[in-house]
């Protein structure tokens, strides 16, 4: 099985850390074991539980290039997100997809490999939309560059975007280049007392208009909106939308709590947390527990007993979407946490895994049991 890795033996990589990873890879391929790629472990709960020898991605860190006028940052996978955030903030720029921190200290590699996006996702785009390039250490021990540091690049298939959200199943994301954006000049938050169905109706109506809404969240009888943009645009939007203004600090705390899942809704760990991703126009759903709606109706969170998960997954599918068992209590060992793939898609996934990681070393089973 380790044929692929042996084929490139002798060829040395530029960095001792990467050389070490190749050694680990070779040993795991020979022994037929799994390597679990670990960043800051902030998303350790996410995906199927797997065991194996850890590969410490945190060791390879540091910003390689950041040119504010190019709107691009390139960094090693182990770079803490906090370091990237503060470098960007100094130049009044940001990662526009608002990656969640989950109360830990995530690394860039983990952010991109998980491919999760925060409240700004519907307005600004998802993690994958900002990936410009990536360097990958695949299961053959090859170091491959895809994409680059420029805004537009159609040379070869867009593999770096495919790596966003691949959960390390195709290899170690060694370096990543992301597009960054200027921070909005101003932000303001509004709050409305509304029922779930009224909130969804309003959100649908606003979606078709050109309004500076950068985030929305409904929970427990209140709809929150965040507006981002130039002063005059915000003033005009506030007049149009109504609602009550939320004081700046309270608003910041609210959006951060939502992004990082540190707010009260997410706190109780005895229930499972299930994520439903739906077409925005999906109606009010009969969910078995407390719910929180984001992304204009496209992302709905539900707290429920873990046993309810398969039924909720089927419900999401019936609405044209999919669901994830996002967090489960420690005693619940699910077989699947993501919505299963139809057979032709599964065939392509397995073929990709087979070609990028023939010995099945990296994060085997983290996404689906089949690979």
């Amino acid at each position, binding site marked *: 099985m380790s044929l692929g890795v042996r084929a490139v033996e002798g060829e040395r990589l530029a960095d001792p850390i990467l050389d070490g990873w190749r050694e680990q890879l070779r040993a795991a391929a020979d022994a037929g074991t799994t390597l679990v790629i670990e960043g800051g472990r902030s998303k350790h709960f996410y995906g199927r539980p797997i065991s194996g020898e850890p590969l410490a991605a945190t060791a390879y860190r540091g910003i390689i290039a950041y040119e504010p*006028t190019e709107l691009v940052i390139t960094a090693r996978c182990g770079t803490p997100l906090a370091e990237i955030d503060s470098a960007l903030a100094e130049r009044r720029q940001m990662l526009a997809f608002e990656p969640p921190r989950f109360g830990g200290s995530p690394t860039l590699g983990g952010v991109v490999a998980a491919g999760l996006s925060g409240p700004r996702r519907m307005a600004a785009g998802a993690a994958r939309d900002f990936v410009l390039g990536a360097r990958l250490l695949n299961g053959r021990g090859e170091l491959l560059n895809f994409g680059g540091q420029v805004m537009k690049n*159609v040379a070869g*298939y*867009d*593999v770096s975007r495919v790596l966003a959200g691949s959960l390390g199943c195709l290899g170690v994301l060694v370096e990543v280049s992301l597009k960054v954006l200027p921070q909005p000049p101003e932000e303001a938050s509004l709050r409305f007392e509304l029922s779930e169905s009224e909130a969804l109706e309003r959100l649908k109506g606003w979606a078709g208009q050109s309004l500076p809404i950068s985030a929305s969240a409904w929970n427990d009888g209140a709809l929150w909106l965040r507006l981002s943009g130039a002063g005059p645009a915000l003033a005009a939007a506030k007049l149009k939308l109504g609602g009550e203004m939320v004081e700046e600090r309270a608003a910041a705390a609210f959006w951060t709590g939502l992004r990082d899942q540190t707010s009260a809704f997410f706190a109780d760990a005895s229930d499972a947390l299930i994520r439903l991703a739906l077409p925005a126009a999906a109606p009010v759903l009969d969910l078995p527990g407390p719910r929180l709606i984001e992304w204009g109706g496209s992302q709905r969170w539900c707290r429920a007993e873990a046993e309810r998960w398969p039924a909720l997954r089927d419900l999401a599918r019936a609405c044209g979407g999919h669901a994830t068992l996002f967090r489960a209590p420690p005693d619940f060992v699910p077989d699947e946490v993501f919505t299963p793939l139809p057979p032709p898609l599964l065939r392509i996934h397995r073929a990709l895994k087979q070609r990028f990681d023939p010995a099945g070393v990296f994060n085997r089973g983290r996404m689906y049991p089949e690979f």
Partner: protein
Amino acid sequence: MNARCHERSDFVSNPSECTRLLAELRSALPHLTLLDRLEDVRPYECDGLPAYRQTPRAVVLPRTEAELKAVLDGCRRHRVPVVARGAGTGLSGGAMPHAEGIVVSLARFMKILEIDPRARLARVQPGVRNLALSEAAAPFNLYYAPDPSSQIACTLGGNVAENSGGVHCLKYGLTVHNVLAARALVLSEDGIDDVLFGGAAPDSPGFDLLAALNGSEGMLAVVTEITVRLTPKPETAQVVMASFDAVAAACDAVAAIIAAGIIPAGLEMMDRQAIAAVEPFARAGYDTEAAAILLCESDGAPEEVRHEVDRVIRVLEAAGVRQIRISQNEAERLKLWAGRKAAFPAVGRITPDYLCMDGTIPRRRLGEMLSAIAAMEQKYRLRCANVFHAGDGNLHPLIMFDAHDKEEMGRALAFGAEILELSVALGGTITGEHGVGIEKLAQMCVQFTPAELAAFAAVKAAFDPLGLLNPDKVIPTPARCREYRQTGGTRPEERDARTESDG
């Protein structure tokens, strides 16, 4: 099947299988439009890049998905290569036929299946023209944002296959950012699968294969239905034309606009030669004395646009602008853009032929690139006009030549190749939006290592294990790369050394 074990080579087909396939299609699908006389297939021998031509064995124009599926299944069973084709406006030979294969035109799939103004999305067949979609969405005050200059003619299927861009990409994204889902026919070893990539719900489970489909140049699947996001029409838009005495000053102004935290709706540049070609043709009102002009557009609510235009003007003044013109109404705005949109045909009027290159480089290297191109004009004794998406660093040098003069054509091709290699050396890429196709195969060997090219081949094989879809495009074989290097091309190892030292 392992790309490393035996070396990949160009597709080998059996001509008699194609003869059998055509006979079979004729009897099984009597209503299928099937062209195989030379004069009928000749119009399909090239796309928008006539330098590369090849007549196919046949062209089919299915009307229904059932016909399309039957044709693809025939190709699968007989192992006949198949090239999908939209409007044929591609600029890299992507839709150029295979000598022993058939062309499947999607031109008859031109229905807009659904426009949902509340959800702000549209579902279309692949043969729908880019502009036709925006026109259909207009009554709802919506439009489809990616707007290639070819938007009157090019199809959404072609746009997905090329991940096309337009002048509004900096703010509104490329095709990949605006496509929510694509349904496509995939050719597996044992049949044709109808597969949905992406979906109306965000973040589909599994790998993001929709991202791979965008820009895959018809090599992974045949796209049959596309769901795109529509964008609310901005309440208003204004464009600023700014001219400069030096190209370097215009480049600095571009960086300064971005540094000020402004993401304009469009940010385009033209150099002296492009202005000289465009102005007599389009009468857009550009400063014909200038070394370069910028077009910088702001859109949004009226207050927002006023505010942003004021800031842009302040930045331009600090950057030493020569002349500023601001559109005062929609007619003036469209006129200023008309010149830019007509740049290719305008250059086409002053030269028998031109080659359009498509490298993208980091913006800060624009000045360097332009002076290098000026030196190449001397070296190759050919003129070159530069039009580009300055905000994205995506250049379109238009090299002027006469294709009847074979020696001159050779110089033009060498000129283009040198620009592409320099794009890679400056930390960029050989193609920003036109694709690799057949044209840039050799330069792929410059941008990518053999292992990276093998990884692309692995992606293709994962989708298309029989290798029938648009074979021999985009991914050069190792043999071709060796040959290219022996004739003096640069190697990717040298590329790495250069870009890393650049920091």
